[in-house]
């Protein structure tokens, strides 16, 4: 087991008699190489939860284990944890600060105390992983387009060679092509064995890639299931301010109209097959 989250809680007012929990008794575990989506609307506690995994926040109660070790324990090497568990915050391009893209991506490896050649080698590898054009390595990160800035920032995390990559709303504010690019990068990384945890409120993004979905609402983990199971419960999703992909609603509509279709379908590709099957084509 790579990561184990055991009954964690988080509250901003621990002294209060009935504290309000931002994270409320959440438990789950992550196996190596998984592709997990964490969804929930703003304020559901998902952003707090992922900070536990990186040791940036300590849970008020409960524990987080990384390879069996409690990350909140005294003397635990947080620096190594943060390198092994890469956390890409929302709008990561706002963390760029160096004069060139390459130098910026080197920042992580530099903090790990690696020699200069190794820093650059890792930076270049990371940049190629996110398909960042080599011609722009020496450009100022502030002169890049939105999508490229985002990819450079993600490379900044990848250069530390994390085992787990957590991305908080990595597609926010990008155009359809930019969104697709980032999601493809995530899938490629996952194919190479990196565990990916994708935090999102876009069901369409999640449906296509994730094999397991965690749904948060008001600090509680209310689903931990494969996508077909979660999306077929679209009524519940709507109650908590989320929705299933449009395709799921099509299948639901067809079912109601008397077609014998499966309703646990959530991508365009699968829906097409299913509808064609019913129509006998």
């Amino acid at each position, binding site marked *: 087991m790579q990561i184990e989250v055991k009954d964690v809680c988080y509250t901003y007012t621990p002294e209060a008699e009935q504290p309000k929990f931002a994270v409320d008794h959440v438990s789950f575990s992550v196996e190596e190489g998984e592709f997990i989506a964490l969804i929930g*609307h*703003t*304020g559901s506690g998902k952003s707090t939860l992922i900070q536990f995994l990186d040791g940036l926040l300590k849970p008020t109660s409960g524990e987080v284990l990384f390879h069996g070790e409690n990350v909140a324990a005294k003397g635990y090497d947080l620096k190594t944890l943060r390198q092994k568990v890469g956390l890409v915050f929302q709008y990561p391009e706002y963390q760029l600060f160096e004069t060139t893209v390459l130098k910026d991506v080197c920042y992580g490896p530099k903090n790990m105390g690696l020699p200069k050649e190794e820093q650059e080698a890792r930076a270049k590898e990371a940049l190629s992983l996110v398909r960042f054009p080599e011609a722009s390595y020496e450009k100022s990160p502030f002169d890049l*387009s*939105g*999508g490229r800035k985002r990819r450079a920032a993600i490379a900044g995390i990848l250069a530390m060679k994390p085992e787990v990559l957590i991305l908080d709303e990595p597609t*926010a*504010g*990008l*155009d*359809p*092509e*930019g969104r697709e690019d980032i999601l493809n990068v995530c899938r490629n990384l996952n194919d190479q064995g990196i565990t990916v945890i994708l935090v999102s*409120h*876009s069901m*369409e993004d999640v449906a296509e890639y994730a094999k397991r979905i965690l749904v948060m609402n008001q600090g509680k983990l209310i689903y931990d299931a494969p996508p077909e199971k979660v999306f077929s419960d679209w009524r519940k999703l709507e109650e908590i*301010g*989320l*929705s299933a*992909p*449009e*395709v799921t*609603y*099509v299948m639901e*509509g*067809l079912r109601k*109209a008397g*077609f014998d279709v499966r309703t646990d379908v959530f991508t*365009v590709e699968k*829906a*097409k097959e299913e*509808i*064609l099957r019913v*129509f006998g*084509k």
Partner: protein
Amino acid sequence: MNIIEILNLVHEYRELDEEGNEAEALRAVDGVSLTVEEGEFIAILGHNGSGKSTLAKHVNALLTPTEGTVYLSGMNVAEHKPIWEVRREAGMIFQNPDNQIIGTSVEEDVAFGPENMGIPTEELLKRVEVSLEKAGMAAYRLHSPNKLSGGQKQRVAIAGMLAMRPKVILMDEPTAMLDPVGRKEVLETMHELNRQEGITVVFITHYMEEVVDADRIVVMKDGKLVMNGAPREVFSRLEELEECHLTAPEVTRLAAELKKAGLDLPDGVLSVDELVNALCRLK
């Protein structure tokens, strides 16, 4: 009547080198002509950097054209003086909800525009009340904007525009930084204002699902206007859209795939119900 008329608009961002000479000129908008009728809800789509924002900023004189002319309610925007007569005619909502709220309370922020216009106090109070009501934010009148959700902040910004009584509201990716609930809030508010108050809306976005209810869609690519038509028409040209680095909503794509596979479906299906009904008819 045409409320906005854009004629051969060109806008270049010029970069100066160290000696102050022109080093590079980037053509953000490249010869665009477009007219918008009063009361229309028009959506502008385009990839990041396609020039859609730059285009919109010419309508309320935040930018001046390199070439070409923009008319708003008959005024030549670049030359009309004083400039705030143009700006009160066309309000603008921006992408980042935090960076456009000036007041430290909701009502103060809504009053900011009309205060600048020199509207007397009693009238101000009335306008603030009515605008907040229309934007569905009346209950938050005395709140601090910092504690509102993204969607609520954008609705405060909308109320701030309404208080200036504009004919046009330009929306520059107002939903890009919001979650699905916030996006829905903003979009529904705008459609309502468009229908009930007859306000002309220019809505910039790159979420395809948000534009299916627009009267018209304009697509921009690399500074040029490449598509212009009703949603049904634009979304039936999937290949062209893809060339513009865009896609159609999921339902539209599903319908197109099914049609390609031999089912007799219409082009440019826009909603779930439409697709389900069309499929039912085939049975």
